[in-house]
């Protein structure tokens, strides 16, 4: 679909946040020079067309008690598929990507508590005989992805 200038302004504005007030679309629409109904209609269209993946609250699973950790392994090519099977078999592995580096397998561990991360990583090291490097998030620098307005 083609996005017009207003669609782009909406995408940029709504990445910054959305007010918690009774008629939030009217409030944001007023900033953009749109009625609340027109804003809703444009969002519906962008959602239907797949331009918007999601609209709503983004919950921080860590703030709710869960723990996450990005991990990476250097897996020899000949063992790659066998290691994928072992790593993916763990329910704690949420995403796993093959990437272009000597550290060629990157995945996220998701557990209920911080303490479980190290345990799962150690078990994976035992099962695969390979080092699991852990890269927990220390700080986030988030502003948001913006589209050319």
């Amino acid at each position, binding site marked *: 679909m083609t996005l017009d200038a207003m669609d782009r302004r909406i995408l940029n504005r*709504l990445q910054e946040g959305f007010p918690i007030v009774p008629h939030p679309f009217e409030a944001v629409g007023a900033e953009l020079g749109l009625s609340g109904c027109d804003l809703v209609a444009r969002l*519906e269209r962008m959602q239907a067309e797949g331009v918007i993946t999601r609209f709503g609250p983004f919950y921080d699973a860590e703030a709710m008690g869960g723990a996450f950790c990005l991990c990476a392994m250097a897996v020899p090519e000949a063992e790659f598929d066998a290691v*994928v099977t072992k790593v993916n078999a763990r329910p704690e592995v949420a995403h796993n990507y093959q990437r272009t580096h000597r550290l060629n397998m990157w995945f996220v561990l998701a557990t209920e508590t911080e303490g479980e991360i190290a345990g799962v990583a150690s078990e994976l090291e035992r099962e695969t005989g390979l080092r699991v490097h852990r890269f927990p998030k220390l700080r986030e620098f988030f502003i948001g992805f913006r589209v050319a307005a």
Partner: protein
Amino acid sequence: MTIDATDRRIIAATQGGLPLVPAPYAAVAAGLGMKEDVLCARLREMQAQGVIRRIAVAPNHYALGMVANGMSVWDVEDGQIAELGTLVGALDYVSHCYERPRALPAWRYNLFAMIHGASREAVEDKRQAIAALLGPACRAHDILYSTRILKKTGLRLRPKEG
């Protein structure tokens, strides 16, 4: 922050998104058998405590023509990372920017930034632009492209009592 059973019901009802109707909070509240002002107060409190990072739209990079992306990684002076991370995180083509620990000697990089572009070449150009922006405070950098998705599972909250 401790979240209670009511917060969990609110999370379960909204983690898939807000309804696109003129009064979305009233609609969610009605579904939960709760007053709108009570729901809004809870949402504001969760946002103040960081349980809600933000209420916002997540654009689909692919649908926007940003079909290429790479995980750029930077070895930046520790003393300057707060300032430089903020600069990189503010770039319009960077979506995720984090400080992470090094793992020497296998891994020297402490700043991670996902770069999006219309092509691999565009992503490389942007990486060079970041290198210029960081200047001498950056000692080395690299970029990792994903060649295969090996597993992808959503990070959804498990419904839990409490």
